[in-house]
């Protein structure tokens, strides 16, 4: 570890106004250090998803600057967003394929990441044959395939049932510890944010602003029952209080 902390992603004084006049974000300053996992929690409609679209370059800010290091980001969408006509393997290969990676190389890489998310043996299945949790694993594998240094997660586990959701958090936690990437993770769930992150950022309702930031000091990898430790509950309580304060 070098002394100077590198920045993977930085928002400086970012405003975003939609063409219809709605001010979605205002004065957002936020940075994600290299290797840092940052979660963003906030009430519905606080511009969390807009934040990700700006970070990924899908959208550009009205004012301020967004700077992401590296040329490729791994984006994990709200839904698995798989192409239904492609097999699991072909879906995972897609980003590498579009980036022009030669077939043998991307195929091998796709098999590797499928193993990493626990889906070896499912290569030939179509997305329609999989459960919601498995589809999300495929989506995760697809984001991993180009080895990006920065990941953007847009409430990836929001549509899953509680048990699957907890398991997916643990899986992501394990992969994170193994691969060591930077991430900006959007979620509605405070425990999810605290469990996964080095830092949790709270946003206010529209127009979205960063109102509070909490460090989560537990070392990675984190055991599943960390969620029931008093220290964990204390941080979750503080974040929830900040969230309620922002919503008032």
């Amino acid at each position, binding site marked *: 570890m070098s002394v100077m902390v590198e920045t993977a992603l930085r928002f400086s004084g970012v405003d975003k106004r939609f063409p219809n006049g709605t001010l979605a974000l205002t004065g957002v300053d936020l940075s994600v250090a290299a290797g840092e996992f940052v979660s963003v929690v906030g009430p519905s409609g606080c511009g969390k998803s807009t934040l990700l679209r700006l970070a990924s370059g*899908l959208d550009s800010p009205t004012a301020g600057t967004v700077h992401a290091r590296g040329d*490729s980001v791994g984006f994990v*969408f709200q*839904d698995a967003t798989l192409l239904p*006509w492609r097999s699991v393997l072909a879906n995972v290969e*897609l*980003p590498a394929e579009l980036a022009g990676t030669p077939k043998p190389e991307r195929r091998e890489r796709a098999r590797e990441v499928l193993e990493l998310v626990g889906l070896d043996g499912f290569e030939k299945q179509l997305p329609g044959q999989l459960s919601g949790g498995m589809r999300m694993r495929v989506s995760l594998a697809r984001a991993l395939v180009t080895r990006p240094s920065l990941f953007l997660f847009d409430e990836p586990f929001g549509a899953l049932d509680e048990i699957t959701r907890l398991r997916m958090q643990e899986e992501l936690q394990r992969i994170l510890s193994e691969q060591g990437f930077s991430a900006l993770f959007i979620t509605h769930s405070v425990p999810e944010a605290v469990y996964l992150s080095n830092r949790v950022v709270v946003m206010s309702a529209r127009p979205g602003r960063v109102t509070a930031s909490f460090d989560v000091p537990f070392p990675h990898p984190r055991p599943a029952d960390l969620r029931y430790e008093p220290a964990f509950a204390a941080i979750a309580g503080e974040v929830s209080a900040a969230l309620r304060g922002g919503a008032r």
Partner: protein
Amino acid sequence: MSAQTVGPTVSAPEAHDPPAISTAPAADRARHGWVTSLAPLGSLLGALGIWYVVSYVVLRPERRFLVPPPHQVLSVSFLDWSHLEPMLSALALTARVSLIGLLLASTLGVLAAVLMSRARLLERALYPYAVILQTVPILAIVPLIGLWFGFGYTSRTVVCVIIALFPMIANTLFGLQSVDRAHHDLFTLQKASRWDRLRKLELPAALPAIFTGLRTSAGLSVIGAIVGDMFFKQGSPGIGTLLDVYRARLQSEDLFAAIILASGFGVAVFALFTFLNRLAVGSWHGSATDR
């Protein structure tokens, strides 16, 4: 086609159940299964019955040629090779014209839709005229087609293309434009080229819609070919040509047989495209599966 594939699930009445309560519904279900499976056959028999009644009861003998009874159509036309053979070769010709017409219409239609989906301006410029293509009465422009393309195969094919083109354009365009926004984002994030986006996202996503168009256009191109046969009679006769000849000569058995053959061909084409649709997108798209 779909009526036969839905197999009835006949459950036998269970022997152990108390008879008073459960055999009645079970028997009902069994009877219902029978009725469902025999329904198409029943309606066919009913139709034949009505046909006979019209032939023998409604019509006086001297007017019976208007609706010859089914067995006469069978013996005079279908079972007599000298009558059936010209019909079959005419049908083969019509089939060839309609398939070539469909091939041209679908190629042109998909190309036009892709061009329109590339550029909004192009869509604005062309789509209204594609709609006109659909609304212009084909019979009104038949004389013009004859003048331009002669009174033979070319004109028959042109009629097919004109009549079958619009559903291909409209459905393909709809399919290309209804691609999921998140899927587009996925391709944008990877800086996909326009060509990759078209080839790997838009066209596959539009495939179910393209097949809907193909099914409609296939039926229309059969109609187009038969209409073409009737008006452009140079060269070997198509089934449409024969229909007109049989009418003129009052060969009503042959007329009925030719109509049945032509309809059968239309049904076969529709079934073929339903089957191809299932083959192409059945594994992943709801339009072609029960799931």
